[in-house]
């Protein structure tokens, strides 16, 4: 099924955009915005608003209609779409792994945003979903924020971790990618990569990106503790971990 955006009629291809161009505000600038919209593949482009941000920059609000469409049937998501719940995860561990599993998590590098990893790991959890610490079959260790990659690995070894959870919130200049890559390289250097389930998470982290960087999975905005717990235990089971 080919789909394209819907404004008020099927397949009208309507999209709202806003952006800034590094030119002074003028009729020419408006025209440039239209041309830019056309180059993006819009057939009809209207600059419905523009105003100067300074002598050298202009802001535009633009509506466009495009004939570009994508084949929805061909869209593939490598996403853990279904997930066990709190009880499901604990039962799954009891039945299949038959011992408590150890999960170590941290917000690594210079990143100091603990709220995300806390939401996943702390007792209290998030939005009425218990965190991993509350799972009877999980021993969860939340190392907090600003944990250097080396320390995280050391700690994981010491605690005999089955899984490592890394949170990365700051993404400016791709600092998260550098940091996540460094971690995996260190882990591989230690020969531990295949022994642990390793997940990354954060609002700008997708499953795709995480896979590309060598992680087992990535979890974005709106993740609940059971989503990652469920993934970990199924992955462990799949790998035959006992």
């Amino acid at each position, binding site marked *: 099924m080919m789909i394209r955006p819907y*404004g*008020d*009629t099927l397949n009208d291809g309507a999209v709202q955009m806003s952006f800034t161009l590094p030119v002074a505000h003028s009729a020419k600038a408006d025209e440039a915005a239209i041309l830019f919209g056309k180059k993006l593949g819009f057939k009809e482009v*209207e600059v419905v*608003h523009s105003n100067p941000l300074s002598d050298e920059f202009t802001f535009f609000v633009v*509506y466009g209609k495009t004939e570009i469409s994508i084949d929805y049937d061909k869209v593939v998501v490598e996403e853990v779409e279904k997930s066990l719940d709190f009880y499901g995860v604990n039962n799954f561990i009891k039945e299949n792994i038959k011992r408590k599993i150890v999960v170590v998590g941290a917000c690594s590098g210079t990143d100091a945003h603990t709220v995300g990893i806390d939401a996943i790991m702390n007792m209290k959890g998030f939005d009425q979903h218990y965190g991993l610490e509350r799972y009877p079959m999980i021993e969860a260790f939340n190392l907090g924020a600003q944990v250097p990659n080396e320390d995280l690995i050391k700690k994981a070894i010491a605690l005999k971790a089955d899984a490592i959870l890394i949170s990365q919130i700051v993404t400016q200049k791709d600092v998260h990618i550098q940091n996540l890559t460094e971690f995996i390289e260190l882990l591989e250097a230690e020969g531990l990569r295949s022994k642990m389930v390793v997940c990354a998470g954060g609002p700008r982290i997708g499953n795709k990106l995480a896979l590309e960087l060598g992680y087992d999975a990535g979890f974005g905005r709106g993740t609940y503790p059971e989503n990652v717990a469920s993934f970990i235990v199924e992955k462990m089971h799949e790998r035959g971990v006992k």
Partner: protein
Amino acid sequence: MTKSKLNLDTDKIAKARELSKQITAPVQKYIEKHTTVAIERTTLRMMGADGVDSIGVPIPNMVVDQIGDHICYGAAKYYINALLKKGVTPEELNNEIANGLDLTKIDFVDFSYIEEKAQELVEAFATKVKANVAYRAEKINTYKEKENSPLLYLIVATGNIYEDVKQAQAAAKQGADIIAVIRTTGQSLLDFVPFGPTTEGFGGTYATQENFKIMRKALDETGEEIGKYIRLVNYCSGLCMPEIAVMGALERLDMMLNDSMYGILFRDINMYRTFVDQKFSRMINSFAGIVINSGEDNYLTTSDAVEKAYTVTASQFINERFAYESGLPARLMGLGHAFEMNPDIKNGFLLEMAQAQMASEIFPEAPLKYMPPTKYMTGDIFKGLAMNTLFNFIAKSTNQGILLLGMLTEAVHTPFMQDRFLAVANAKYVLNNMADFSDDIEFKKDGIMQTRAKVVLDETIEFLEEINKTDLFNAIESKMFAEVSRPKNGGKGLSGVAEKAQDYYNPFYTYLENELNIVKEGNKL
């Protein structure tokens, strides 16, 4: 009830009401003496006249055309006579008319038979409408607590009834309480109602009975699914005002845009025609439990909202009076006003709040219809969203009844589905976040808001006095409303007005007058 914040002088309010009564009195006299082609077509529809001929002319129009000048006697007896003489059902009769039957060519039966049959037809009509009223009341009662307060009113305007349905259902799921199907541009000037489902309109969809039915069904379905009664709105306005009222009564619409002067001022429809039509349309709306929405907001799309605020208030008083005269109770009066001041005005928010609060204190029982910013909306959708946020804030804190949600793309296009969603989300956020703000504050004595309301009320009275002096017809002619002049004998539709004959006969009109306890102007003293 919240206690008064504005400390308005109740004597002044009473004075304004008294003036409106005086202003509308001569108009009422005129109304009583006249009928129109639209009223007669409406009466025909109430009896079952419906459908179109092979070239699309509606049966009610055909009949009225046949009757010609004789509409001064009322169309009812012609149609009833034919039913009796032919011994057919209305459906059958409609078919015959479509195929060329001329009702004026049929001999009359004895009038007592006509009266008897009329009784039956009136009852049949009344039963249907009463069933609708009962159904609505029950559903609203059952699902009461899911309603927003104010009720959230969203428009659909694709031009295609089937697309409208999709968008309306989505809007209802998102939280709308009321869906208005915007009417295509130009329909108000048609002197007939198009027939059947339609898919081609500009800036809106044709109002047809079939479209009403389609949308009603769709909203009922979605309503059941989400456990809510979704109200449906259309336009009871233009040259077919009362006809659309009756279609709405039959198809269980819940609200109708219906103003006593809108057509005159904004569509250049003749004033006599409009006044006569609006009365009957309101009687029907009242009987069908349909909330009317008056159109004071329209003044502010051309006039300045600060300077001309009093025209809004004055028109509300006049609309109220006309509504009472049509038997419409206050709880069905969605009197209109709008948030249309220039956003650059210092303390504009206070002036808007004063105006909205004033409306709410003067018309405490009326479910006021509050219109969002439109005129000062621009392509800057982000600014527009902020304006809508403050608008929603005022709506809640001044206890409005019907909140017409503003679209961030107001200046760009008729709403996209996502625009509507963003509007509902914004309203829900604001309404909940400051739910009891109004109860938690008082206005400063003689502060900006109290003073503003006082000034506007004074101006309103002054304005009503002027109108009363010259009379409403002359006032409209002399540009006193909306800065346009409408000559008494100008505009569209005057030829459709006829003076009633002594023995004018309209059993439906009479029935409704009785049901609604309407005291005729003539009988008043």
